[in-house]
């Protein structure tokens, strides 16, 4: 049974290292590119990409719950909306600065997420998805029901976040950079979580809940914890959304089922259970329909739908999963070639 380590066994390790380094450089390049966008693009483009960054937040949260944890939720729009309304109401009616609302705009959805997490222990799979879908469909009605506070379908306007004077930034640039920083922060936190104990436990639970429990994973606590975190990420997104867009209303698509579906689609397209998937997914779901509708608004919806189906069929692991596999194959081939060449050279006298 004992086998000496042989050369072919080393190759994958080398490949893995190269891959890590290349991936690392790519991510760095992407961050750098993202940071210069607001200085090169006109304001409307910057605003469009600000929304991409913000939509990525609930998607990152959903990815933790659904992508890693396998709990399908269609209620992410509710937590996004909660965060947005906390900020909008406190800024517009109580004179808070947007950043002062942050703790509450995160804490309230977090608490709601924990509450929603509890039934997920008993109600499973598609049934839980339906429960959350009902919540998402109901949320705009709640906004209207409390229109004294929320502004209902007429909306609530608030002053958007302004750059401090010494920065000399335009409002759109500032909103973009703030959103980018928060997104990177959340991504980092969730990446550590996903790659660490909790992430492993989540995937284990998704694969085999009983086996995970017999290994000591507290399934109930983990699910509730992750449900809360997922909602908190959405709440943060909602806060930034209100603070950068300056108006929230029950007609805002992100607070409705349309939003819930967009977040889910973004996660699936980008790659469920991948770290960068949500961002790529948010980019596609947020920008592609607009680009398509510039070509033909009538065909846009159909074309977008077809594209979704194709991505899901051809790349079950999403765009990021697909790219990773591709990169892995390529680097594996390169290093293999490399090692054989080396071996040959060493063989020479």
């Amino acid at each position: 049974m004992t086998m000496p380590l042989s050369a072919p066994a080393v190759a994958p390790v080398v490949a893995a290292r190269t891959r890590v380094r290349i991936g690392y450089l790519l991510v760095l390049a992407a961050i750098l590119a993202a940071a210069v966008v607001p200085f090169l693009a006109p304001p409307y483009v910057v605003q469009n990409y600000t929304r991409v960054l913000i939509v990525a937040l609930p998607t990152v949260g959903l990815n933790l719950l659904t992508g890693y944890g396998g709990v399908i939720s269609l209620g992410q729009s509710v937590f996004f909306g909660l965060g947005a309304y906390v900020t909008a109401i406190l800024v517009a009616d109580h004179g808070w600065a947007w950043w002062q609302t942050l703790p509450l705009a995160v804490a309230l959805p977090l608490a709601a997420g924990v509450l929603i997490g509890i039934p997920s222990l008993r109600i499973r799979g598609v049934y839980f998805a339906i429960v959350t879908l009902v919540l998402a469909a109901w949320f705009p009605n709640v906004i209207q029901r409390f229109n004294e506070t929320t502004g209902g379908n007429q909306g609530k306007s608030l002053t958007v976040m302004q750059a401090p004077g010494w920065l000399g930034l335009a409002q759109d640039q500032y909103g973009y950079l703030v959103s980018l920083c928060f997104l990177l922060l959340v991504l980092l936190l969730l990446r550590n979580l996903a790659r660490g104990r909790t992430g492993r436990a989540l995937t284990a639970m998704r694969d085999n809940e009983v086996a995970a429990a017999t290994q000591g994973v507290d399934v109930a606590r983990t699910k509730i914890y992750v449900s809360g975190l997922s909602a908190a990420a959405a709440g943060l997104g909602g806060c930034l959304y209100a603070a950068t867009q300056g108006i929230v209303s029950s007609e805002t698509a992100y607070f409705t089922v349309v939003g819930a579906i967009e977040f889910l689609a973004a996660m699936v397209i980008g790659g469920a259970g991948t770290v960068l998937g949500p961002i790529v997914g948010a980019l596609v779901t947020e920008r592609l329909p607009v680009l398509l509708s510039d070509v033909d608004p009538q065909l846009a919806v159909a074309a977008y739908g077809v594209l979704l189906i194709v991505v899901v069929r051809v790349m079950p692991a999403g765009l990021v999963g697909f790219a990773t596999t591709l990169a892995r194959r390529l680097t594996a081939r390169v290093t293999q070639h490399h090692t054989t060449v080396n071996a040959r050279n060493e063989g020479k006298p």
Partner: protein
Amino acid sequence: MSRRNSNRQLVPLTWCLAGLLLVAACGGRGSDADTGGVKNDSGVKVAQVVKKDDCTGYQASPGISDDEIKLGSSYPDSGPLASIGETNKGMESYFKHLNESGGINGRKITLIGKDDQYDPTKASANVNELLQKDRVFAIVGVQSTTGTMAVWDQLARECVPILESTISSATRDQRAAHRNAIDGLVPYASEGYALAGYLTKTLGEKKVAVITQDGSFGDAAARGVERAIEENGGKLVAHESFQVTDPTVRSQVTTLKASGADALVVIAAGTKCPQIFDTVAASGWKPTIATTFTCSNTTLMGLAKPASTDGIISDGWVRVRTADDPESKTFLDAVKKYAPGVNASSENVAIGWAQGQIVAAILERATELTRVGVINSALGLDGVAVPMAVDGVKASTSADDSAPIESVQIRTFDSAAGAWTPVTTDALVDMTGKLGDFE
């Protein structure tokens, strides 16, 4: 292993900070240089309410060339409220029709429309794109108050006109802070005033009840209703409100009926309207009913039982289209030609056509085709008549009055014919300049 990890995690944050520093170094973005004014041959001298120095980052005449005026619009073109966007099809048809006869002093109007699905954020994104990418001269025909409000702070600062857009429930203070925005509809408060005024003054009803949709639309209209009842010595005996999402309005109707009112003002929209009419009829109560134009769409009226809607009173500022009316014929022909897929009998299409005529009048009367020039022209309408408006309804604005249309024609519904007919006596209610009184 964990050490390497933590180092790696610092890097993106470092970049983020580096990015922010870079920002500070680069500073913000400079605005485009001011462009010179473009003279307009047909200009009418008006008061200069808004001056170019009041504007920040002002650009005078983007989107204007020797033969073109580019306008942009955001409206629901898909989604559940797409029917509201029909308004813009009417407006576009009018511009195309106008272009055939030379446009505005030889400049053709190009209208670039974008779909916002009634979502204020999308409306805001659309408007920004229209201004920055398509470089339109002005924004026209934004069909939701939230959509307009999502952009009007920024556009007020930059002095970009927002013409014939929905701000009907805006307060006087809000209007005063946004002189660049001109209403596309009769203000809801004025409409409520006209309806209740007709009930109490012309018909002599003393005990009036009102049912309103929760929200700023209902609140604004109710203010006008209360004012008219008070002025005419009537009494508001009951006021009930409902949520758009309420499954029924039975309890509200029961309360209203119990108040012993002889007349009822219905301030609602969409499918709630026929539901209210049917509930009132089913309760056995027979008040004189008056309702806002948001209920008056003939398709909506047709959803209620004929017995529930016969004789209902409503109002409009756009003429009732008839076969023998030349303007109606021009309108129907143009819509058939330029927007063949659109249902020309929809009230919204006709409103859009009339709004297009007001936009054209504002452009035509501007002394120079600059944004400030056009805003001042829009605030200086002095009884301008447009063909699609009811005879006698004139567009008037001033420095404190951003609602061009404040007169309506009172109509009654004939449920057998499924059509509205103007009441013969005192059909026109003129409330010009009164908007401020309704607060």
